[in-house]
């Protein structure tokens, strides 16, 4: 009785808490965050449309200046990331096979090593790992470069010279990161598959190269190649647009560049995750 008396008011308070509406400050906070996110998404979509518009309308303009610039960004986003991609591919292949081979051998299902590689690396981890690599090694520096250029007024200087800043600064980066994401993803998948077999070989898994290749070929469909290309290109595009948007689309001061970089990373990761979820739905439907 005394215990009920002691705990009664507390229970009452809890019930009152559950039945009471959310504090206005909390709902306001969530509401503001959602509205802000929707506003940013709308601005990002507008920026993407402007970029595509400039790609179309200024295609072929000043190729003598733009081609070296494009080659520079392709090399920077693709070629310069090859060593890191190779390292990541080896780690990914070893991790996936290392984690699964023991379990598969225990249940006599080592025939599925190749299938696991396809499911894990080709469909999911490969594009995601490549996207993270491109974001961190190329996307973030792009935000810093563009944000600094914006803060120093170089964008207005370009406009004053009759040069479209989107054409000169954004288009080469978007093309570079998109193409590089596709190419690096292909390298990463091939590297991970090779590293996976090497690890299986070192673990004395009774699996010949021919059998491993047959398992992988059997697990792959034509659709996998198409969706792999589309997914990695989509990731590259989302990263490039998010980074260029945060660095360039708004007037910045130097002290705001660091915050813009963080925001770009968050926006790019959210965009990639959303795109990945959409592709999972496509996989499930097909």
């Amino acid at each position: 009785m005394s215990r009920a008396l002691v705990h009664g008011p507390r229970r009452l308070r809890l019930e009152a808490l559950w039945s009471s509406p959310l504090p206005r400050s909390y709902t306001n906070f969530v509401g503001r965050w959602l509205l802000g996110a929707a506003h940013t998404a709308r601005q990002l979509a507008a920026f993407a449309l402007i970029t595509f518009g400039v790609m179309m309308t200024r295609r072929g303009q000043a190729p003598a200046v733009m081609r070296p610039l494009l080659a520079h960004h392709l090399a920077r986003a693709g070629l310069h990331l090859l060593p890191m991609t190779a390292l990541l591919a080896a780690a990914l292949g070893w991790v996936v096979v290392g984690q699964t081979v023991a379990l598969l051998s225990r249940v006599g299902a080592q025939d599925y090593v190749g299938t696991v590689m396809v499911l894990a690396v080709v469909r999911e981890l490969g594009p995601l790992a490549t996207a993270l690599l491109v974001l961190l090694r190329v996307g973030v520096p792009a935000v810093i470069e563009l944000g600094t250029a914006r803060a120093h007024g170089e964008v207005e200087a370009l406009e004053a010279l009759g040069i479209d800043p989107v054409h000169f600064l954004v288009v080469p980066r978007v093309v570079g990161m998109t193409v590089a994401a596709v190419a690096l993803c292909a390298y990463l998948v091939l590297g991970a598959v090779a590293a996976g077999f090497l690890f299986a070989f070192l673990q004395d898994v009774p699996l010949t190269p021919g059998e491993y290749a047959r398992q992988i070929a059997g697990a792959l469909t034509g659709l996998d190649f198409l969706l792999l290309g589309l997914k990695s290109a989509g990731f590259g595009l989302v990263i490039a647009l998010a980074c260029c948007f945060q660095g360039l689309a708004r007037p910045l001061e130097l002290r705001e560049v660091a915050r813009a970089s963080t925001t770009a990373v968050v926006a790019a990761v959210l965009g990639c995750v959303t795109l990945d979820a959409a592709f999972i739905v496509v996989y499930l439907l097909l």
Partner: protein
Amino acid sequence: MPAADPVLELTGCTLTAEEADGRVLAREVNWTVAAGEHWGLCGPAGAGKTHLLEVAAGLRAPATGRVRLLGRDPAALRGPVLAALRREVALVYGRGGRLFGHLTLAQNVALPLCYHRNCPLEAAAEETGRLLAALGLEALAARLPGQVNPAWQQRAALARALILRPAVLLLDHPFEWLNEAHARWWRAFLDGAEIGWPCPPTVVVTTEDAQAWRLPGWRWAHLRDTTWTVEAPAPSAAPPPAAREGLAAETPPG
């Protein structure tokens, strides 16, 4: 003597700041710059002189009012026609000229020429070299903007604007951060001294201190507390001494 054609016309323009407060920088700006005129715009820091120059260059639209550049309305133009009009009106920003930090001075100067002519940066080396030599920058051509002092950066920004041979030159605070030797060079250049490269016939300069830069034949306007006033033309007699003698003395560091 017939009046020269107007190259810049601002009629009933109101300028507002880009920031969230959207405060008014200038009201009722009525300003006509005729071909061949030299103007000085004077006003305190933050008065909106740079904003006014950007409006005059067609880079920004005024909140209200009408702008005409070389007889055309930039707001009504798009694409290559607008780009061609903008090339006729060169705007050089102050405080180092906002050069592109990853390009050398020579590449900075060559970039607009090559972009509009569609040629590699190397192909413009001869023309760029001639202009850099005319402005005393040949020794610094291979340096990045961050490796030279702001006074030389400002001169490189001038070269970047001149390479397109504009009809109108708008200079935003060109005299900031200049030592006396550089200041003499600029005064002489603006006064029409022969340097081996033509100065555009129409020049507009902003400054916070009009007294130090009054040159013969210049007209002056003032922007202060959102009020725009234009000085009556000064009598042509008794021009202040020109400063051409400073030109030859100026040499870049090795």
